[in-house]
Protein backbone atom coordinates (compact mmCIF):
# COMPACT_ATOMS: atom_id res chain seq x y z
CA UNK A 1 0.00 0.00 0.00
CA UNK A 2 2.71 2.40 1.07
CA UNK A 3 4.91 1.34 -1.85
CA UNK A 4 2.12 1.89 -4.31
CA UNK A 5 1.48 5.30 -2.86
CA UNK A 6 5.13 6.21 -3.38
CA UNK A 7 5.03 4.95 -6.96
CA UNK A 8 2.04 7.08 -7.92
CA UNK A 9 3.73 10.08 -6.32
CA UNK A 10 6.88 9.45 -8.30
CA UNK A 11 4.82 9.10 -11.48
CA UNK A 12 3.07 12.38 -10.79
CA UNK A 13 6.38 14.11 -10.16
CA UNK A 14 7.75 12.75 -13.44
CA UNK A 15 4.70 13.98 -15.32
CA UNK A 16 5.04 17.41 -13.71
CA UNK A 17 8.72 17.63 -14.62
CA UNK A 18 7.97 16.64 -18.19
CA UNK A 19 5.26 19.27 -18.38
CA UNK A 20 7.61 21.95 -17.07
CA UNK A 21 10.27 20.87 -19.55
CA UNK A 22 7.85 20.97 -22.51
CA UNK A 23 6.63 24.39 -21.39
CA UNK A 24 10.18 25.69 -21.20
CA UNK A 25 10.93 24.40 -24.71
CA UNK A 26 7.84 26.15 -26.06
CA UNK A 27 8.75 29.40 -24.33
CA UNK A 28 12.29 29.35 -25.60
CA UNK A 29 11.10 28.48 -29.09
CA UNK A 30 8.77 31.44 -29.17
CA UNK A 31 11.17 33.84 -27.51
CA UNK A 32 14.01 32.98 -29.84
CA UNK A 33 11.94 32.07 -32.88
CA UNK A 34 15.28 31.03 -34.19
CA UNK A 35 16.42 28.57 -36.76
CA UNK A 36 16.80 24.92 -35.97
CA UNK A 37 20.39 24.09 -36.65
CA UNK A 38 20.33 21.45 -39.36
CA UNK A 39 24.02 21.48 -40.15
CA UNK A 40 23.12 22.84 -43.57
CA UNK A 41 22.06 26.26 -44.66
CA UNK A 42 18.57 26.60 -43.23
CA UNK A 43 16.16 26.93 -46.11
CA UNK A 44 12.71 28.42 -46.00
CA UNK A 45 9.41 27.78 -47.71
CA UNK A 46 8.38 31.35 -47.63
CA UNK A 47 11.41 33.40 -46.69
CA UNK A 48 13.73 35.34 -48.93
CA UNK A 49 16.52 32.75 -48.79
CA UNK A 50 18.34 31.78 -51.95
CA UNK A 51 16.98 28.24 -51.75
CA UNK A 52 13.42 27.01 -51.64
CA UNK A 53 12.62 23.99 -49.52
CA UNK A 54 9.60 22.46 -47.81
CA UNK A 55 11.55 22.59 -44.54
CA UNK A 56 10.14 24.84 -41.85
CA UNK A 57 12.30 27.93 -41.59
CA UNK A 58 11.95 28.17 -37.85
CA UNK A 59 11.00 25.92 -35.00
CA UNK A 60 8.19 28.31 -34.30
CA UNK A 61 6.76 27.88 -37.79
CA UNK A 62 6.86 24.10 -37.41
CA UNK A 63 5.08 24.34 -34.08
CA UNK A 64 2.42 26.71 -35.39
CA UNK A 65 1.75 24.36 -38.32
CA UNK A 66 1.67 21.38 -36.00
CA UNK A 67 -0.87 22.99 -33.71
CA UNK A 68 -2.86 24.35 -36.66
CA UNK A 69 -2.77 27.98 -35.49
CA UNK A 70 -3.48 30.70 -37.99
CA UNK A 71 -2.81 34.36 -37.37
CA UNK A 72 -5.64 36.83 -38.05
CA UNK A 73 -5.30 37.90 -41.68
CA UNK A 74 -4.50 41.58 -42.15
CA UNK A 75 -5.73 42.92 -45.46
CA UNK A 76 -4.02 45.86 -47.20
CA UNK A 77 -7.43 47.35 -47.99
CA UNK A 78 -10.61 46.47 -46.09
CA UNK A 79 -12.50 45.05 -49.06
CA UNK A 80 -16.25 45.01 -48.24
CA UNK A 81 -17.91 41.94 -49.78
CA UNK A 82 -21.36 43.06 -48.60
CA UNK A 83 -21.19 46.44 -50.33
CA UNK A 84 -20.33 44.84 -53.65
CA UNK A 85 -23.14 42.33 -53.34
CA UNK A 86 -25.77 44.85 -52.22
CA UNK A 87 -24.74 48.02 -54.05
CA UNK A 88 -22.68 46.89 -57.03
CA UNK A 89 -24.85 43.79 -57.66
CA UNK A 90 -21.84 41.62 -58.39
CA UNK A 91 -22.16 37.83 -58.17
CA UNK A 92 -19.39 35.76 -56.64
CA UNK A 93 -18.15 34.39 -59.95
CA UNK A 94 -18.02 37.85 -61.57
CA UNK A 95 -14.92 38.40 -59.48
CA UNK A 96 -13.85 34.86 -58.59
CA UNK A 97 -14.17 33.76 -62.18
CA UNK A 98 -12.08 30.59 -61.98
CA UNK A 99 -14.45 28.78 -59.62
CA UNK A 100 -16.57 27.14 -62.31
CA UNK A 101 -13.63 26.27 -64.50
CA UNK A 102 -10.80 24.92 -62.45
CA UNK A 103 -9.07 24.32 -59.14
CA UNK A 104 -8.74 27.93 -57.96
CA UNK A 105 -11.50 30.52 -57.70
CA UNK A 106 -9.02 33.40 -58.23
CA UNK A 107 -8.82 36.77 -56.52
CA UNK A 108 -9.62 39.47 -59.11
CA UNK A 109 -6.84 41.73 -60.32
CA UNK A 110 -6.74 45.41 -59.36
CA UNK A 111 -7.26 46.18 -63.06
CA UNK A 112 -10.75 44.70 -62.71
CA UNK A 113 -11.53 46.82 -59.65
CA UNK A 114 -10.51 49.95 -61.49
CA UNK A 115 -13.18 49.32 -64.16
CA UNK A 116 -15.55 50.77 -61.58
CA UNK A 117 -13.32 52.58 -59.14
CA UNK A 118 -11.92 55.07 -61.63
CA UNK A 119 -15.32 56.69 -61.10
CA UNK A 120 -16.91 55.21 -57.97
CA UNK A 121 -16.10 56.40 -54.45
CA UNK A 122 -12.83 58.00 -55.57
CA UNK A 123 -12.89 60.37 -52.58
CA UNK A 124 -12.58 57.56 -50.02
CA UNK A 125 -9.27 56.62 -48.51
CA UNK A 126 -9.42 52.85 -49.33
CA UNK A 127 -10.12 53.61 -52.97
CA UNK A 128 -7.25 56.10 -53.15
CA UNK A 129 -5.03 53.38 -51.72
CA UNK A 130 -6.39 50.95 -54.34
CA UNK A 131 -5.66 53.47 -57.08
CA UNK A 132 -2.10 53.92 -55.85
CA UNK A 133 -1.53 50.15 -56.19
CA UNK A 134 -2.94 50.34 -59.70
CA UNK A 135 -0.70 53.30 -60.60
CA UNK A 136 2.38 51.41 -59.41
CA UNK A 137 1.32 48.35 -61.40
CA UNK A 138 1.08 46.25 -58.24
CA UNK A 139 -1.55 43.90 -56.85
CA UNK A 140 -2.66 44.56 -53.27
CA UNK A 141 -0.99 41.85 -51.15
CA UNK A 142 -4.25 40.16 -50.07
CA UNK A 143 -3.69 37.71 -47.26
CA UNK A 144 -5.15 34.24 -47.64
CA UNK A 145 -7.97 33.25 -45.34
CA UNK A 146 -8.47 29.65 -46.34
CA UNK A 147 -5.98 27.02 -47.41
CA UNK A 148 -3.97 24.35 -45.62
CA UNK A 149 -0.41 23.93 -44.53
CA UNK A 150 1.68 22.50 -47.36
CA UNK A 151 2.50 19.36 -45.37
CA UNK A 152 -1.19 18.44 -45.28
CA UNK A 153 -0.78 17.71 -49.03
CA UNK A 154 -4.39 18.58 -49.85
CA UNK A 155 -5.41 19.23 -53.47
CA UNK A 156 -8.74 20.98 -53.76
CA UNK A 157 -10.68 21.75 -56.92
CA UNK A 158 -13.57 24.23 -57.10
CA UNK A 159 -14.93 23.19 -60.49
CA UNK A 160 -16.60 19.84 -59.66
CA UNK A 161 -18.36 21.45 -56.70
CA UNK A 162 -19.56 24.56 -58.49
CA UNK A 163 -20.76 22.47 -61.41
CA UNK A 164 -22.84 20.39 -59.00
CA UNK A 165 -24.43 23.67 -57.78
CA UNK A 166 -22.96 23.49 -54.30
CA UNK A 167 -23.36 27.01 -52.93
CA UNK A 168 -20.26 28.99 -52.04
CA UNK A 169 -21.79 29.51 -48.60
CA UNK A 170 -21.60 25.78 -47.77
CA UNK A 171 -17.82 26.09 -47.62
CA UNK A 172 -17.28 29.82 -47.03
CA UNK A 173 -20.23 30.94 -44.93
CA UNK A 174 -22.46 33.81 -45.98
CA UNK A 175 -19.85 36.04 -47.61
CA UNK A 176 -22.56 38.38 -48.92
CA UNK A 177 -22.98 39.64 -45.36
CA UNK A 178 -19.29 39.94 -44.53
CA UNK A 179 -17.57 43.30 -44.43
CA UNK A 180 -14.13 41.73 -44.70
CA UNK A 181 -13.97 38.06 -45.68
CA UNK A 182 -13.41 35.90 -42.62
CA UNK A 183 -12.86 32.18 -42.11
CA UNK A 184 -16.38 31.04 -41.31
CA UNK A 185 -16.00 27.34 -42.06
CA UNK A 186 -13.36 24.97 -40.75
CA UNK A 187 -12.08 22.96 -43.73
CA UNK A 188 -11.22 19.80 -41.84
CA UNK A 189 -10.99 16.44 -43.51
CA UNK A 190 -14.21 15.29 -41.87
CA UNK A 191 -16.01 18.33 -43.29
CA UNK A 192 -15.03 17.26 -46.81
CA UNK A 193 -15.48 13.53 -46.38
CA UNK A 194 -18.89 13.79 -44.67
CA UNK A 195 -20.41 15.53 -47.68
CA UNK A 196 -18.60 13.25 -50.12
CA UNK A 197 -20.08 10.21 -48.41
CA UNK A 198 -23.56 11.74 -48.51
CA UNK A 199 -23.29 12.50 -52.22
CA UNK A 200 -21.51 9.34 -53.34
CA UNK A 201 -18.50 11.42 -54.35
CA UNK A 202 -15.11 9.75 -54.13
CA UNK A 203 -13.50 9.30 -50.70
CA UNK A 204 -10.40 7.64 -52.06
CA UNK A 205 -7.39 9.22 -50.32
CA UNK A 206 -5.81 10.25 -53.62
CA UNK A 207 -8.92 12.22 -54.56
CA UNK A 208 -7.65 14.91 -52.22
CA UNK A 209 -4.05 13.96 -51.37
CA UNK A 210 -1.32 13.79 -54.00
Amino acid sequence: MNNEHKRTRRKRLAALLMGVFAGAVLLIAFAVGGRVATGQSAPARSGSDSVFSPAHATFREALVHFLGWRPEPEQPIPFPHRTHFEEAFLGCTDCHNGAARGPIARIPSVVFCMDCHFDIATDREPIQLLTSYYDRGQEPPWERIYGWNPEAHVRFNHAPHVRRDIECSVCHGDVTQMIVAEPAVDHTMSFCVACHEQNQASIDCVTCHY
Partner: protein
Amino acid sequence: MPRWGMTVDLDRCTGCEACVTACHAENNIPTVGPEEAARGRAMHWIRVERYWEGEFPDVRLKFRPVFCQQCDNAPCEPVCPTYASYHTDDGLNAQVYNRCIGTRYCANACSYNVRFFNFHNPEWDRPLDLQLNPDVSVREVGVMEKCTFCIQRIQAARIEARADDEEGAIEDGALQPACAQSCTANALVFGDLDDPESRASRLSRSPRGGKLLEELGAEPSVTYLQKGDWYESGGG
Protein backbone atom coordinates in the same frame (compact mmCIF):
# COMPACT_ATOMS: atom_id res chain seq x y z
CA MET B 1 -14.04 2.54 -63.59
CA PRO B 2 -10.95 2.28 -65.78
CA ARG B 3 -7.91 0.18 -64.91
CA TRP B 4 -4.83 2.17 -65.82
CA GLY B 5 -1.82 0.50 -67.34
CA MET B 6 1.04 1.09 -69.67
CA THR B 7 3.04 -0.62 -72.39
CA VAL B 8 6.71 -0.01 -73.09
CA ASP B 9 7.97 -0.93 -76.54
CA LEU B 10 11.63 -1.81 -76.05
CA ASP B 11 12.11 -2.13 -79.82
CA ARG B 12 11.25 1.54 -80.11
CA CYS B 13 13.01 3.02 -77.07
CA THR B 14 16.09 5.01 -78.06
CA GLY B 15 17.24 5.67 -74.51
CA CYS B 16 17.00 9.43 -74.95
CA GLU B 17 15.72 9.93 -71.40
CA ALA B 18 13.23 12.61 -72.38
CA CYS B 19 10.79 10.70 -70.16
CA VAL B 20 13.13 11.03 -67.18
CA THR B 21 13.41 14.78 -67.66
CA ALA B 22 9.70 15.23 -68.23
CA CYS B 23 8.92 13.21 -65.12
CA HIS B 24 11.23 15.31 -62.96
CA ALA B 25 9.66 18.52 -64.23
CA GLU B 26 6.06 17.35 -63.95
CA ASN B 27 6.30 15.79 -60.51
CA ASN B 28 8.58 18.18 -58.60
CA ILE B 29 11.23 15.51 -58.17
CA PRO B 30 14.40 16.89 -56.64
CA THR B 31 17.95 16.08 -57.67
CA VAL B 32 20.03 15.03 -54.69
CA GLY B 33 23.58 15.87 -55.76
CA PRO B 34 26.58 13.62 -56.42
CA GLU B 35 27.36 12.56 -52.85
CA GLU B 36 23.85 11.43 -52.08
CA ALA B 37 23.52 9.77 -55.50
CA ALA B 38 26.70 7.78 -54.78
CA ARG B 39 24.95 6.48 -51.65
CA GLY B 40 22.09 5.19 -53.80
CA ARG B 41 19.71 7.97 -52.88
CA ALA B 42 19.10 9.40 -56.34
CA MET B 43 15.42 9.94 -57.04
CA HIS B 44 14.18 9.12 -60.51
CA TRP B 45 10.59 7.88 -60.65
CA ILE B 46 11.52 6.55 -64.08
CA ARG B 47 15.00 5.35 -65.00
CA VAL B 48 16.41 4.01 -68.28
CA GLU B 49 18.44 0.85 -67.77
CA ARG B 50 21.07 -0.01 -70.37
CA TYR B 51 21.96 -3.51 -71.55
CA TRP B 52 24.53 -4.75 -74.08
CA GLU B 53 23.58 -7.77 -76.17
CA GLY B 54 25.85 -10.09 -78.22
CA GLU B 55 29.63 -10.34 -78.55
CA PHE B 56 31.90 -7.70 -80.01
CA PRO B 57 31.75 -6.67 -82.84
CA ASP B 58 28.11 -7.78 -83.15
CA VAL B 59 26.85 -5.83 -80.18
CA ARG B 60 23.51 -4.24 -79.73
CA LEU B 61 22.50 -1.73 -77.13
CA LYS B 62 19.10 -2.12 -75.52
CA PHE B 63 17.32 0.26 -73.23
CA ARG B 64 14.66 -0.48 -70.68
CA PRO B 65 12.71 2.29 -68.95
CA VAL B 66 11.69 1.10 -65.48
CA PHE B 67 9.18 2.79 -63.22
CA CYS B 68 6.53 1.73 -60.73
CA GLN B 69 4.74 -1.24 -62.27
CA GLN B 70 1.51 -0.42 -60.38
CA CYS B 71 1.20 -4.11 -59.47
CA ASP B 72 -2.25 -5.60 -58.91
CA ASN B 73 -0.76 -7.84 -56.24
CA ALA B 74 1.67 -5.27 -54.97
CA PRO B 75 4.24 -6.36 -52.40
CA CYS B 76 4.60 -2.76 -51.16
CA GLU B 77 1.02 -2.47 -49.93
CA PRO B 78 0.54 -5.12 -47.22
CA VAL B 79 3.81 -4.17 -45.51
CA CYS B 80 2.79 -0.56 -44.87
CA PRO B 81 1.80 -0.19 -41.21
CA THR B 82 -0.16 3.03 -41.83
CA TYR B 83 -1.98 2.22 -45.09
CA ALA B 84 -0.09 5.08 -46.75
CA SER B 85 0.54 2.68 -49.60
CA TYR B 86 -2.74 1.26 -50.84
CA HIS B 87 -4.56 0.16 -53.98
CA THR B 88 -7.15 2.38 -55.66
CA ASP B 89 -10.20 1.16 -57.55
CA ASP B 90 -8.65 2.22 -60.83
CA GLY B 91 -5.67 -0.05 -60.32
CA LEU B 92 -3.04 2.35 -58.99
CA ASN B 93 -0.66 1.85 -56.11
CA ALA B 94 -1.33 5.10 -54.35
CA GLN B 95 1.00 6.74 -51.89
CA VAL B 96 -0.59 9.09 -49.35
CA TYR B 97 2.25 11.36 -48.29
CA ASN B 98 0.71 12.69 -45.12
CA ARG B 99 -0.07 9.19 -43.97
CA CYS B 100 3.52 8.03 -44.55
CA ILE B 101 5.74 7.83 -41.49
CA GLY B 102 8.85 6.71 -43.35
CA THR B 103 9.35 3.13 -42.26
CA ARG B 104 10.66 2.34 -45.79
CA TYR B 105 9.21 -1.19 -45.59
CA CYS B 106 7.54 -0.64 -48.95
CA ALA B 107 10.80 0.18 -50.70
CA ASN B 108 12.29 -2.91 -49.15
CA ALA B 109 9.44 -5.07 -50.40
CA CYS B 110 9.40 -3.63 -53.92
CA SER B 111 10.88 -6.03 -56.47
CA TYR B 112 11.56 -3.28 -59.00
CA ASN B 113 13.46 -0.79 -56.87
CA VAL B 114 11.23 2.08 -57.89
CA ARG B 115 10.34 3.64 -54.54
CA PHE B 116 12.34 6.58 -53.28
CA PHE B 117 12.77 7.96 -49.82
CA ASN B 118 13.31 11.61 -48.97
CA PHE B 119 16.40 11.42 -46.79
CA HIS B 120 16.56 15.23 -46.73
CA ASN B 121 14.24 18.08 -47.42
CA PRO B 122 14.53 18.78 -51.14
CA GLU B 123 15.93 22.16 -52.17
CA TRP B 124 15.60 24.29 -55.25
CA ASP B 125 17.85 27.28 -55.85
CA ARG B 126 15.68 30.31 -56.37
CA PRO B 127 14.17 31.18 -58.78
CA LEU B 128 13.99 27.54 -59.92
CA ASP B 129 11.19 27.01 -57.40
CA LEU B 130 8.95 29.00 -59.74
CA GLN B 131 8.97 26.05 -62.13
CA LEU B 132 7.45 23.71 -59.54
CA ASN B 133 4.17 22.19 -60.66
CA PRO B 134 1.39 23.68 -58.49
CA ASP B 135 -0.80 20.61 -59.09
CA VAL B 136 1.66 18.35 -57.31
CA SER B 137 2.81 18.34 -53.68
CA VAL B 138 6.39 19.06 -52.75
CA ARG B 139 7.31 16.12 -50.54
CA GLU B 140 9.24 16.72 -47.34
CA VAL B 141 11.87 14.74 -45.48
CA GLY B 142 10.81 11.33 -44.18
CA VAL B 143 8.28 10.57 -46.91
CA MET B 144 8.34 7.79 -49.49
CA GLU B 145 7.46 8.64 -53.06
CA LYS B 146 7.22 6.96 -56.44
CA CYS B 147 5.65 7.08 -59.90
CA THR B 148 1.95 7.90 -59.64
CA PHE B 149 1.08 7.53 -63.34
CA CYS B 150 0.73 11.33 -63.02
CA ILE B 151 -2.27 11.12 -60.70
CA GLN B 152 -2.75 14.89 -60.99
CA ARG B 153 -3.47 14.48 -64.70
CA ILE B 154 -5.76 11.51 -64.07
CA GLN B 155 -7.79 13.50 -61.51
CA ALA B 156 -7.99 16.56 -63.77
CA ALA B 157 -9.10 14.42 -66.72
CA ARG B 158 -11.74 12.70 -64.58
CA ILE B 159 -13.15 16.02 -63.42
CA GLU B 160 -13.14 17.46 -66.94
CA ALA B 161 -14.75 14.34 -68.41
CA ARG B 162 -17.58 14.49 -65.88
CA ALA B 163 -18.20 18.15 -66.69
CA ASP B 164 -18.96 17.14 -70.26
CA ASP B 165 -21.19 14.14 -69.59
CA GLU B 166 -22.55 12.12 -66.68
CA GLU B 167 -20.71 8.94 -67.59
CA GLY B 168 -17.39 10.75 -67.48
CA ALA B 169 -15.57 8.38 -69.81
CA ILE B 170 -12.06 9.55 -70.63
CA GLU B 171 -11.26 9.21 -74.31
CA ASP B 172 -8.35 6.93 -75.14
CA GLY B 173 -5.22 8.99 -75.75
CA ALA B 174 -6.68 12.16 -74.22
CA LEU B 175 -4.88 11.44 -70.98
CA GLN B 176 -1.16 10.79 -70.87
CA PRO B 177 1.42 10.87 -68.12
CA ALA B 178 4.35 13.21 -68.73
CA CYS B 179 6.72 10.39 -69.75
CA ALA B 180 4.44 9.04 -72.48
CA GLN B 181 3.64 12.53 -73.69
CA SER B 182 7.31 13.37 -74.11
CA CYS B 183 8.38 10.04 -75.65
CA THR B 184 9.64 10.94 -79.11
CA ALA B 185 9.71 7.31 -80.22
CA ASN B 186 6.16 6.58 -79.01
CA ALA B 187 7.56 3.72 -76.98
CA LEU B 188 5.38 4.46 -73.96
CA VAL B 189 1.62 4.03 -74.31
CA PHE B 190 -0.78 4.71 -71.46
CA GLY B 191 -4.43 3.73 -71.27
CA ASP B 192 -7.32 1.80 -69.82
CA LEU B 193 -6.57 -1.94 -69.78
CA ASP B 194 -10.25 -2.77 -69.20
CA ASP B 195 -11.18 -1.14 -72.49
CA PRO B 196 -10.39 -3.82 -75.09
CA GLU B 197 -10.14 -1.16 -77.80
CA SER B 198 -7.63 1.16 -76.11
CA ARG B 199 -4.15 1.28 -77.62
CA ALA B 200 -2.48 0.22 -74.38
CA SER B 201 -4.84 -2.69 -73.98
CA ARG B 202 -4.34 -3.90 -77.56
CA LEU B 203 -0.56 -3.59 -77.28
CA SER B 204 -0.52 -5.42 -73.95
CA ARG B 205 -2.03 -8.46 -75.67
CA SER B 206 0.73 -8.47 -78.29
CA PRO B 207 2.74 -11.70 -78.68
CA ARG B 208 5.84 -9.55 -78.14
CA GLY B 209 4.63 -8.72 -74.63
CA GLY B 210 5.95 -9.78 -71.26
CA LYS B 211 6.16 -8.55 -67.71
CA LEU B 212 9.20 -7.77 -65.63
CA LEU B 213 9.96 -10.51 -63.07
CA GLU B 214 6.58 -12.06 -63.84
CA GLU B 215 7.45 -15.20 -61.88
CA LEU B 216 7.25 -13.24 -58.61
CA GLY B 217 3.50 -12.96 -59.07
CA ALA B 218 3.14 -9.26 -58.36
CA GLU B 219 0.95 -8.89 -61.46
CA PRO B 220 2.35 -5.63 -62.83
CA SER B 221 0.14 -3.32 -64.91
CA VAL B 222 3.02 -2.53 -67.23
CA THR B 223 3.73 -4.71 -70.27
CA TYR B 224 7.11 -4.63 -72.02
CA LEU B 225 7.17 -5.39 -75.75
CA GLN B 226 10.17 -6.94 -77.39
CA LYS B 227 10.95 -9.02 -80.50
CA GLY B 228 12.42 -12.48 -80.03
CA ASP B 229 12.39 -14.66 -76.96
CA TRP B 230 11.50 -12.50 -74.01
CA TYR B 231 13.18 -14.61 -71.36
CA GLU B 232 16.35 -15.47 -73.26
CA SER B 233 17.09 -11.86 -73.98
CA GLY B 234 17.02 -11.10 -70.30
CA GLY B 235 13.60 -9.53 -70.30
CA GLY B 236 12.09 -11.47 -67.43
